[in-house]
């Protein structure tokens, strides 16, 4: 086979997610009363990138065949923290941003330490740490409130040169700074290898522990970037249990839509980003078709159920029935 065929096979999930997103977004803008204008794109991208960051975070962990059910809570916690710290003069704001990102990294590292060195199951461990992170968020913001450096917020949520949404540029920058180096480094390869077959990776001397730890820690960092952006959009911090939970749930949906295998070792954060954008667009489709907003949770749930059921098509390719049981 030629090289490009390998590349195509590897990127099939990502390309499918991109295609779904383009189709959905075309339907969305075609029926939007304002049409395809810079304003519509800006609003859509501002809503989309929040989920995209959290979905990237989830991807890193899912690649190692784990799952992080605390991403939504890290997102909420960093949102509350940012509403205290990211304010004041330029230096203070910069310090606040670093502190918020550091907190996210620390939360992710704690998850990683418990799962990898404590050898607990990721599901239970991250549900428990999620409760802790939410508790801390509630301590920081018992009631919604706080504020943020509005110059920075407006710069990052506005438009560059009047056309390009700044949040999309930020998302692109994060991909270049975090995801690309990670996925090409030894640690990133180790994370993929650990998710694909931990035993084989261990036997081959791949640093699986460090790779998985890096994945969990970076997931915390990405969730914190999401939390930071939430603060930039809303100007407040809010420890909302329902919203944190929803982001965790939607991040899994986005990861599945983005072609990342939940059994680990397959997929990319780029796919998850398109999955997230597509999921958001599908949710917003209801508004342009003038449905009652009450139907939105049901609609999103059904889309989610259908999206995960699509994975069942792989069953048709199974030749030996024993392969049903992993």
């Amino acid at each position, binding site marked *: 086979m030629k090289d490009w065929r390998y590349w195509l096979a590897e990127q099939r999930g990502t390309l499918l997610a991109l295609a779904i997103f383009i189709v959905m977004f075309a339907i969305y803008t075609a029926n939007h009363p304002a049409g395809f204008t810079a304003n519509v794109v800006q609003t859509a991208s501002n809503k989309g990138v929040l989920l995209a960051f959290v979905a990237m975070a989830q991807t890193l962990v899912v690649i190692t065949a784990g*799952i992080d059910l605390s991403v939504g809570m890290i997102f909420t916690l960093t949102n509350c923290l940012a509403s205290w710290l990211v304010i004041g003069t330029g230096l203070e704001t910069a310090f606040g941003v670093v502190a918020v990102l550091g907190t996210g990294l620390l939360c992710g590292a704690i998850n990683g330490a*418990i799962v990898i060195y*404590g*050898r*607990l*199951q990721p*599901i*239970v*461990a991250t*549900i*428990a*740490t*999620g*409760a*802790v992170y*939410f*508790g*801390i*968020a*509630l*301590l920081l913001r*018992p009631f919604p409130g706080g504020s943020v450096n509005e110059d920075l917020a407006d710069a990052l949520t506005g438009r560059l040169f009047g056309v390009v949404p700044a949040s999309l540029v930020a998302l692109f920058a994060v991909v270049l700074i975090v995801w690309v180096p990670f996925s090409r480094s030894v640690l990133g390869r180790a994370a993929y290898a650990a998710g694909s077959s*931990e*035993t084989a990776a*261990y036997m081959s001397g791949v640093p699986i522990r460090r790779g998985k730890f890096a994945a969990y820690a970076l997931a915390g960092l990405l969730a914190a970037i999401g939390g930071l952006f939430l603060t930039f959009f809303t100007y407040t911090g809010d420890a909302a*249990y*329902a919203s944190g*939970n929803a982001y965790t*749930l939607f991040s*899994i*949906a986005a990861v*599945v839509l983005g072609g990342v295998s*939940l*059994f680990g070792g397959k997929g990319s954060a780029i796919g998850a980003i398109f999955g997230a954008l597509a999921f958001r667009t599908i949710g917003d489709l209801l508004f342009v078709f003038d449905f009652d907003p*009450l*139907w*939105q*949770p*049901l*609609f*999103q*749930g*059904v889309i*989610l*159920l259908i999206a*995960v*059921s699509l*994975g*069942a098509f792989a*069953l048709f390719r199974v030749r030996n*029935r*024993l392969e*049903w*049981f992993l």
Partner: protein
Amino acid sequence: MSETTIGGIAGRMPKFIRRADPAVVTAFACIVLLLFLGSLYSRSFLSPEYLLQQLKVASFLGVIATGMMLVILLGQIDLSVPWSVAVGAMMAAAAAAYGPVGAALAIPFGICCGIMIGIVNGIGVAYLRIPSMIVTLATNAVAQGLMVVYTGGFSPQDSATGAMRYLATGFAIPGVPNAVIIWAVIGAAMVFVLTRTGFGRSVYGIGNRERAAYLSGIDTRRVVMIAFAVSGGLSAFGGVLLAGYASKAAQSMGDAYLLPSIAAVVLGGTSILGGRGSYLGTVAGVILITLLQSILSVMQMPEAGRQIIYGVVIVAMLLLYGRAPASR
């Protein structure tokens, strides 16, 4: 059967010690420790009224955790508990609004709705082979969506029927709350099913290695499906009891039961990977969690502190005895 209890320690020790699961012993020890710490704080912690009240509160969690345990024994997980609970409660209360016939059918109707959710989960996990964590999250979202559409986004106005209230708060035997009796009956049935029936053996078998169970001639997919249906039904029944206790259903009444039910099962020594665990451990886990919550609320700990302590205790206890073997 009981001679071959799983996880038996090498044996020169007396039989009852040899057969005891260290996790269950630790969980019971923690209960005693909590009661001791509580009694230092206030004498009333050891009064029979307080203990009975705790047992009653624990029985709601106990009913829900029973279903969760069955699913976890299979090596799966049911994350649709929050809205299964809410659906059970809301649908039972909704049926109650349709006159005397509705009131009579309220409880079975609520449970049936929960079983429906469980069956969707079961089809997804057993026949479509979707990871249970994902499909149950999705059905949870669908159930939430259905309820939001049904109630219009507000808490429903229907109230619980007399029968529901009686089940949750009444006293059929003087001194023993009905809820505790219900939990005891469901628990006894579960112990019987798990240890004395082919279905129970299949559940442990599938939890250990589904391939092997399949090759031994067990219809593994049917067993998985039934287990999820039972879990959904028991969650909904827990919701019915809760609605009877509070005398009405509420939107997010189930949210507070997902983490505790998983934690109770896992703290009771049931392996989250499936195939290992006893119902006695789950009972210990449920009582432990309820006591912990109660003590924190008696000490007037705010919600934030409760969440933090809760998460830390679960992680700490799992680190004590829930660790996977090192990969070598």
